């Protein structure tokens, strides 16, 4: 069968099971948009290429399937670099296709030409420039394979316009043959046995669960391991939902804005069982002072993570699900032969911290609206399997702290890159992937202004997400740092609560919109939003600008220096 390169590309995407792609056409990718008309693939036309990338990420977060985005060359390619970098740091499987000027003019500074391969090399797991239409099926096959296996990540295919128009003989490769790419999933049996031995001796163990649990679909295995051993679990920002918050062994989020118990349990532990986590600086604080007495078991599918920050006592390279399941068996076998250390005094200590240092904020009846109160109200008036997306900053930390994540794949956020503006497009992508779920974007006013135009996409495509803007009229997290570390010298952080008018803006984009100023209106407005299911809803919550995120470990400090709450007098009544 003879196909054009463009037809072969679309057919290859179909062969890989692509149901939906997010994109925006332009000159160099034009030929590929033609066969798309006959394709089974749903295309969602975005308003900015960055939106396409984040939507694909949200889709991947929520479904576990690779997100697919397609844009043209030059500025479109550079616009999608941010989502690629975001997905690279958070290990999100993405397949991005960019148009390119014809091969014959590459290197001549042609119209809308840029070196997409060169620009995206540092932010993709791998990228391919198609130089022969005959290679298209193989490259697409390889791209999906690389994106979704091992440590997942974004890949990019750069597709020159003349390749799209040339003819090729269609054939689908049965196998992927990449001699330089053989992820090791299995782990070494002796190391798994050693891990169980270390666990048996630990008196103060903590499981430090990271995003790798979710990538490996290992939440059930983790639950089994925790319940079998009684070892408490902290879930990093990337792992919220990987272990249910309602579970008595769940200690919640560690790190710079983690809760006191999660932070301190790690600090005092004598054994850290790191499962799919990577000792990120936002978790460790000052590395030298991090969990000083702990031995480390580190399980990760990426060998380069083992020993990158902290040298493990037992390194295990492998897929988290496979390793944890085998670890469970090793624990059972070890227990049949040996007595395990009693960890009940440790759990007593942990319970004491939970009792003495809960997350705290206070909503006064007629005082300013507290952002945490809004988040908890949304949480309490939505189904427990609601998917929540956030941007980056204070609202993100509050959401991670105050939401109750009881199900995996319900938290969509930008962890590693910290991409402001992530929430709206990511929520749209998540809703496209899981139309059966309620999807809320909890956003800041600063973030909202970066990508709000994608609400037009949501309205026109009938993607009914719900958006809560925690509008404190500031770039809040920057303000917080200027408050704490720059003697309240606020530099370029004020945004204004009503410029833009968020309600009018949202309405102009086809959404239903509300404004909430006082605590008593919070729940009724959320209930109104819940009744709308045919278009996006935006609620502009006017929140207290003086509220800061606590606990906080100041940057450069050890986690021992955690500040639990605001000094007396901070925040408004």
């Amino acid at each position: 069968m003879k196909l054009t390169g463009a037809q072969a590309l679309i057919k290859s995407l179909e062969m890989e099971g692509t149901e939906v792609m997010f994109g925006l056409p332009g000159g160099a990718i034009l030929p590929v948009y033609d066969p798309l008309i006959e394709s089974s693939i749903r295309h969602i036309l975005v308003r900015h290429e960055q939106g396409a990338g984040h939507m694909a990420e949200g889709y991947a977060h929520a479904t576990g399937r690779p997100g697919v985005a397609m844009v043209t060359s030059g500025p479109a390619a550079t616009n999608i670099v941010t989502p690629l970098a975001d997905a690279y740091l958070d290990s999100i499987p993405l397949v991005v296709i960019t148009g390119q000027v014809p091969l014959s003019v590459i290197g001549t500074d042609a119209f809308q030409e840029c070196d997409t391969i060169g620009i995206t090399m540092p932010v993709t797991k791998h990228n391919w420039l198609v130089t022969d239409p005959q290679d298209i099926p193989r490259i697409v096959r390889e791209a999906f394979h690389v994106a979704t296996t091992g440590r997942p990540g974004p890949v990019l295919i750069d597709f020159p316009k003349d390749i799209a128009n040339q003819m090729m003989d269609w054939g689908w490769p049965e196998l992927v043959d990449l001699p330089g790419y053989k992820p090791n999933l299995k782990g070494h049996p002796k190391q798994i046995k050693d891990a169980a031995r270390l666990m048996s001796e630990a008196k103060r163990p903590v499981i430090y669960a990271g995003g790798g649990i979710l990538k490996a679909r290992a939440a059930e295995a983790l639950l089994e391991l925790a319940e079998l051993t009684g070892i408490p679990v902290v879930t990093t920002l990337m792992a919220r939902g990987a272990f249910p918050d309602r579970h008595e062994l769940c200690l919640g989020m560690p790190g710079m804005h983690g809760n006191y118990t999660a932070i301190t349990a790690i600090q005092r532990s004598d054994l850290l069982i790191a499962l799919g986590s990577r000792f990120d600086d936002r978790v460790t604080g000052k590395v030298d002072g991090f969990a000083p007495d702990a031995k480390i078991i580190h399980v990760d599918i990426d060998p380069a993570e083992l020993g990158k920050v902290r040298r493990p006592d037992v390194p295990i390279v492998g897929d988290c699900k496979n390793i944890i399941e085998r670890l469970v068996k090793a624990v059972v076998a070890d227990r049949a032969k040996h007595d395990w250390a009693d960890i009940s005094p440790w759990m007593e200590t942990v319970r004491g911290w939970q009792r003495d240092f809960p997350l705290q904020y206070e909503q006064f009846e007629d005082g300013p609206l507290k952002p945490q109160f809004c988040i908890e109200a949304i949480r309490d008036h939505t189904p427990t399997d609601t998917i929540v997306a956030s941007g980056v900053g204070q609202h993100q930390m509050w959401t991670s702290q105050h939401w109750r994540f009881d199900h995996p794949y319900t938290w969509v956020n930008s962890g590693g890159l910290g991409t402001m503006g992530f929430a709206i497009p990511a929520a749209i992508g998540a809703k496209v992937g899981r139309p059966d779920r309620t999807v809320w974007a909890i956003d800041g006013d600063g973030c909202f202004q970066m990508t709000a135009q994608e609400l037009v996409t949501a309205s026109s495509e009938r993607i009914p997400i719900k958006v809560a803007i925690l509008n404190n009229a500031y770039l809040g997290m920057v303000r917080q740092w200027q408050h704490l570390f720059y003697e309240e010298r606020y530099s370029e952080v004020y945004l204004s609560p009503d410029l833009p008018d968020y309600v009018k803006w949202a309405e102009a984009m086809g959404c239903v919109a509300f404004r909430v100023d006082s605590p008593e209106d919070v729940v009724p407005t959320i209930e109104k939003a819940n009744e709308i299911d045919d278009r996006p809803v935006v609620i502009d919550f006017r929140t207290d600008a003086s509220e800061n995120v606590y606990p906080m470990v100041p940057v450069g400090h050890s986690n021992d220096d955690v500040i639990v709450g605001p000094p007396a007098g901070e925040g408004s009544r």
Partner: protein
Amino acid sequence: MEQGTHHILSVLVENKFGVLTRVAGLFARRGYNIFSLAVSPTEDERYSRMTILVDGESAPIEQVTRQLNKLIPVISISELSAADAVERELMLVTIVAGQDARSQATELAAIFEAKILDVGYESMTLMVAGQPEKLDAMTDLLGPFGIVELQRTGRIALPKLSRQSSKLRVVKPGSA
């Protein structure tokens, strides 16, 4: 560079365009120092071999090889410590050597087992192969003649053949 502070990575890569950029880019963005680099075809035309001298001070060599292994076109990496390898390098050097100095230069070339590749009225081009230290020494001694131009290839290396067991360690802990 001090003898012994560097590591030699012998990296087998796919022979495709852009692979050198991928390798060099990885070193640059992770802050690893390349001391020297030689790239050459292998007996199998699908692959090339890169011999990379890494400054052992700039990063733990284990981290370098593991990051390198994550590149899809990297097939395998053999790691050699300086003590476990035989290293050689080639140097071409043009010196000022007119009629008066020519015989002295020829004598020096003989001592270093260098070859005279080209002779002009006022200058002379020599080729010398050997351990990097030998090349350093010869460069020093040629200094007084006046060096017009000098080029070195960068080291290539193979493992020392131990009488017990090979010191060659194939590093492929799996990619991700």
